[in-house]
């Protein structure tokens, strides 16, 4: 077996403190590898350390501790202009006094590429972002989406080993944002570009990424491919931050039983029903826990829970919300806790709000986490 090739980027025990270290770390003991050719997204709420991590790699921040390796070389102390890394900023940061073509040519001009070769590479880069005919315009004459494509072309034109994108679509409206997501993904796949992408939008992260690192409080809570992150979150934070989840508090009643996919514990929910769930990091019997179930995994039946089976919960349908491609059902459990269920439009008759119904799910899709702070 071949050993995996050396990763393109490696953070080794990197910490970053602002001001006095006593005020805490913005990034704490980060170990992270970026493989060549992948699109890695750093996802997290604001202040979670994801942007700081990107800025550490770009060179706009210096780590307090640790090493940052790019192609095996420690670049942690190198000034940004010697790192040769492309960066796309949320505010585009195009140079307003230069034309679009001059903007894209700037990295080549700095590197002393001869004028003729420069023009050809600028043309190619602009063609890549479908702006061939916009070279003569000023950045201010372009729309937000076009400006961000110019910024992308400027960050790629000098063929950097990795392109960093700091919430590049944050300033765009929803429809344009989705269009640009597919465009970035297509560029990444067509050119085999390595990209590190920062966003707080979990939907964007799921759409774009090969892998996602979920940040919270200056550390990575989970690093996995989108599908795995969504279906097998490793802790309550990730379960709550990525995608929508019903979060039902309860107490662990039994130690795990069964093997593999059938491994399960019994949990007494605060609403008074005992359910089965897959233990993720839930504690010993008697400890508080949180059961997370995706709305699309919640089955609703207009029959009484007692007729449905031993793990069904009795609930009252509170509201039915039409959302185009699906309907959301708001259901109230005994003690006021709520469960949301999603159903495709046209999937059978819906009961009237106010009726007593039963809800159930496959225990394999109910994850039991240790209750967090």
């Amino acid at each position, binding site marked *: 077996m071949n050993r995996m090739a050396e990763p393109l980027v490696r953070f080794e025990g990197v910490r970053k403190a602002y001001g006095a270290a006593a005020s805490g770390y913005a990034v704490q003991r980060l170990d992270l590898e970026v493989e060549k050719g992948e699109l890695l997204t750093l996802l997290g709420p604001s202040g979670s350390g994801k*942007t*700081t991590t990107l800025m550490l790699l770009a060179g*706009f921040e210096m780590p307090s501790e640790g090493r940052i390796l790019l192609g095996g070389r420690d670049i942690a102390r190198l000034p*940004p*202009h010697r790192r040769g890394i*492309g960066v796309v900023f949320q*505010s585009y940061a195009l140079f307003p006094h230069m034309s679009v073509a001059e903007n894209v040519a*700037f990295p080549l001009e*700095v590197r002393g590429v001869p004028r003729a070769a420069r023009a050809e590479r600028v043309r190619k880069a602009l063609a890549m972002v479908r702006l061939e005919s916009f070279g003569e315009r000023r950045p201010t004459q372009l729309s937000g989406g076009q400006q961000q494509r110019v910024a992308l072309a*400027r960050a790629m034109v000098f063929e950097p080993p990795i392109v960093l994108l700091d919430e590049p679509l944050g300033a765009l409206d929803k429809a344009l944002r989705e269009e640009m997501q597919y465009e970035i993904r297509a560029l990444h796949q067509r050119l085999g570009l390595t990209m590190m992408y920062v966003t707080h939008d979990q939907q964007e992260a799921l759409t774009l990424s090969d892998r996602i690192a979920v940040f919270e409080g200056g550390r990575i809570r989970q690093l996995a491919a989108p599908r795995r992150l969504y279906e097998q979150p490793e802790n309550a934070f990730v379960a709550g931050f990525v995608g929508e989840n019903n979060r039902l508090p309860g107490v662990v009643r039994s130690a795990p039983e069964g093997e593999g996919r059938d491994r399960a514990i019994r949990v007494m929910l605060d609403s008074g029903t005992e359910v089965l769930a897959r233990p993720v990091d839930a504690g010993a019997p008697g400890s508080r826990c949180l059961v997370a179930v995706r709305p699309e995994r919640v089955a609703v039946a207009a029959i009484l829970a007692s007729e449905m089976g031993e793990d069904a919960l009795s609930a009252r349908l509170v509201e039915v919300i039409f959302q185009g491609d699906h309907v959301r059902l708001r259901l109230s459990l005994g003690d006021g806790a709520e469960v949301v269920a999603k159903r495709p439009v046209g999937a059978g008759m819906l009961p009237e709000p106010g009726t007593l119904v039963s809800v159930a799910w496959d225990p394999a899709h109910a994850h039991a986490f240790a209750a967090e702070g």
Partner: protein
Amino acid sequence: MSAGPATPRIPARIAGREAPAAPVPPAAPPPAPPPTPARMRAPLKPGRILLWAFGVLAILFLLAPVLAVLPLSFSAGSFLHYPLPGLSLRWYADFWSSDFWLPALWNSLRVGAAAALLAGVLGTLAAFGLWRWRFPGQAVVMAVLLAPMVVPAIIVAVALLLAFGPLGLTSSFTGLILGHAALGAPFVVVTVLAALQQFDATQLRAAAACGASPVRAFWRVCLPQIAPGVAAGAVFAFATSLDEVAVALFIAGPAQRTLPRQMFSGLNDSISLTIMAAAMVLVLISGLMLLAVTLLRRPR
């Protein structure tokens, strides 16, 4: 994230460009006036008339001395009094052929240009440093840089004389230019700081990410965008040097006599009306400067 660049508050009025418009709250619809169909036009309110009258009076007060004295330069007579005995350009001809006035005009322009250039370079660098980085003692540095604006000129002149004497810089162009550059630099600092408030510091990061060194990023990305502010400051510095008399009296030797300095001694020696022609020339140059600044400030 690092804190944004320090941007000391400075008056934007003397800026190369207008400061960004303060966020104006959406104008509330004015309370509907009571329906009075008889009178459609609002009458001129007394407060408005008073404001206009005051404004006109202030302008008159500022311009009257200049306006009163300048026609004398066209006098056909030889004395400083009205009515003019007739119109002539004889004093201008005298000015233009005089080896008393012409070298002084030449000196003024040379010293002014050199001082403006020096103040422009140093003032721009100082403003950029003050804007880009936050450091202890920043307020003190700012105050020292702006001091020549508020310290009485005569004190600056005496201080320069005492400091330049031992260095052999008195009675030299170098000394005079250095002195005038110090007087003009604050204008550059102020106009460039105002121009920098419009400049997005992220562009410097973008330039670095493109591979540009800090010097190159400043030269290629920042400077072209703040150039109107730099130019406006340099024009102010030139104008300052042009009508500066105190430092010129103390520092300049016979070879460095500037126009205002020459007018000062001309007034003492003999009341020739050529001095009025010289004054007119100064006013004309100042007017051109004012025009230049107005053009530089215009949004493009």
